[in-house]
């Protein structure tokens, strides 16, 4: 078990290295020169070269990746220029280990950027996860248990419609009507637990959480329904009925247990994906989360931030995968970790 986790973590680290290399390669494969971005219009060739050196873009991308990787372990100075260190040390930003880079655009280390934005995205993800798992699984099970009835058709139909709705549209609808027009909740604003307590934190997250949950919930209703129906046709469910077990035991103990296993997997991976930020939801509600940071970094060609976010998201997905596999072994006795 421990050996398994260690092996998986080791493989995960290798994967992270590969992902960071690929991100660097893709970035530099682009025809845009990042120095153009920082230097702006009417930039002379000389200025451009200066900027390029200042940003550390004059080296080959392989060298730059090497510096990046080194920085993760020992930290870095930006710019790493011995002369500047003598003449104007106050212009040098130090980025302590683990350093994922320094964003000139945002004049902040990527680590700090993540520290600021991750709690926002994590909060939205947790609240959304709660809504969509509870709602999606309960409604999906309900639909399956009432297969063919109006309840089932209604749930399946509504979830199909919601699934087809763009997230930004649902977000805007909720924003306009629930918060502004009807005033059922305060206009959502991100509040930390320190500032607003649990209730303030939650009330700020209600609408973004629901917005994000709706899309996933619609998918989970349909998925849960399908898995539960499938498990009802399993031979072991027939055996359970043949033993004379009450319907409730057959349904909840025998059929549902098997049906929910694949949902655990899906939920774990979906949650990890969401930790990297819900771009549309964060944009609609103007929440300063990872998703919004990623969009901004992308639009102004902010390599350090992009690499940092890619690594962070990949780490979440890798860890979630390991956790899901461990959970699987707990749920299903046939699964052996090896």
């Amino acid at each position, binding site marked *: 078990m421990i050996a398994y986790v260690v092996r998986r973590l080791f493989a995960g680290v290798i994967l992270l290295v590969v992902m960071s290399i690929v991100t660097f390669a893709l970035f530099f494969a682009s025809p845009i020169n990042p120095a153009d971005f920082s230097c702006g219009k009417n930039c002379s060739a000389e200025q451009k070269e200066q900027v390029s050196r200042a940003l550390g873009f004059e080296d080959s991308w392989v060298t730059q990746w090497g510096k990046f990787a080194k920085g993760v372990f020992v930290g870095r100075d930006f710019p790493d220029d011995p002369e500047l260190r003598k003449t104007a040390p106050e212009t040098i930003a130090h980025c302590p280990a683990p350093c994922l880079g320094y964003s000139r655009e945002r004049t902040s280390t990527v680590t700090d950027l993540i520290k600021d934005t991750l709690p926002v995205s994590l909060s939205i993800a947790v609240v959304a996860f709660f809504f969509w798992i509870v709602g999606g699984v309960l409604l999906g099970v309900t639909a399956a248990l009432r297969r063919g009835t109006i309840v089932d058709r209604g749930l399946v139909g509504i979830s199909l419609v919601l699934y087809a709705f763009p997230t930004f549209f649902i977000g805007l609808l909720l924003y306009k009507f629930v918060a502004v027009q009807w005033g059922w909740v305060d206009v959502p604003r991100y509040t930390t637990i320190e500032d607003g307590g649990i209730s303030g934190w939650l009330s700020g997250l209600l609408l973004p959480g629901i917005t994000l949950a709706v899309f996933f919930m619609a998918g989970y209703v349909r998925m849960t329904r399908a898995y539960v129906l499938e498990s009802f046709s399993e031979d072991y469910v027939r055996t359970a009925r043949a033993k004379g077990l009450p*319907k409730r035991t057959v349904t909840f103990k*025998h059929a549902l247990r098997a049906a929910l296993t694949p949902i655990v997997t899906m939920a774990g991976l979906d949650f990890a994906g969401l930790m990297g930020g819900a771009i549309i939801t964060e944009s609609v509600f103007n929440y300063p989360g990872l998703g919004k940071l990623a969009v901004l970094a992308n639009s102004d060609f902010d390599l350090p931030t992009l690499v940092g976010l890619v690594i962070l998201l990949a780490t979440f997905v890798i860890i979630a995968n390991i956790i899901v596999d461990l959970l699987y072994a707990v749920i299903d006795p046939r699964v052996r970790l090896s």
Partner: protein
Amino acid sequence: MDTITPTTTPTSAATPGTGPFLSVEDLRVHFPTSDGVVKATDGLTFKLERGTTLGIVGESGSGKSVSSSAILGLHRGSSAQVSGRIVLDGVDLLSLSDEEMRLRRGKEVSMIFQDPLSAMHPYFTVGNQIAEAYRVHNKVSKKVAKARAVEMLDRVGIPQPDRRVDDYPHQFSGGMRQRAMIAMGLINNPGLLIADEPTTALDVTVQAQILDLLQDLQREFDSAVIIITHDLGVVAEMADDVLVMYAGRAVEYGPAKELLTHPEMPYTWGLLSSVPDVKGDTDARLIPIPGNPPSLLNPPSGCPFHPRCAHRDKVPGDLCWTERPELLQGSRGPSHLKACHLANPDEIYRKEVLVEIAPELAEEL
């Protein structure tokens, strides 16, 4: 727990005057679908006494399993329409409420299934599943139920039952899983045990052990057994009576020995001709039945077997195409029923079928 109304005491023999232990009359199981009604079982009648075994034989899709599921009431809650009478120990099972039927399921009638790997829940231990079958009908503690499960596992020949009781189904071999299924089926001493192709998924050597075990347990518990199979060897070994099913109906019904030595229906001949004989002389031929089992949605006109029957031209006129033969007494006495228009089946069997599949036997006769 011995609860107990006179009619349901598991150990009581059939009360005289109340008829046979199990009597199925004109059982029909129809499934309405968007394409029409699938008549999976269409008028099945048979009787069974305690301590005896009925073999139901037929190809896949002939309605064997559907009929036996109906006895257990497993079609309740589905769209299936079940009609007729299933009288077990004086009680018409079809007239019971769902809850009354549930209380009888696994207690007075239980079933063991074809593939024990898929028929046992992969997430629960074998002991847990067996004990669960006991606890649902007996108000005992988990500990007592588990002890009873160990006892049953021991009885069905699982080595080290006190240790294996905590294993999961996938840790058992195929034969052991089927033994565990049998333990689960018999833990409440049911009067009727339905075995749905209990050996089909097993090795040949294990098959013999399982059949042997079933026979032992039947003697011990004096239960009635319905064994569903397409293996005539199993029938010859186990059954007192045989019922041959085709397209949801019985086409031949009689005592096993009589029916297997003097079959009177071309479909039964076909089944017999399809069985390889180990002792076999090399002149004997294996003759498969041509074609496929008929659609139950839209069965052939007249005799449902006529499209595949090699002897239909021996029936005068187009009787086989136009009129379905009833299940009636043949030429060999009142206990042997057949549904066939042929006037002289014994002669045809002896002269045409037996010479092909067992030339030696044909000479002896």
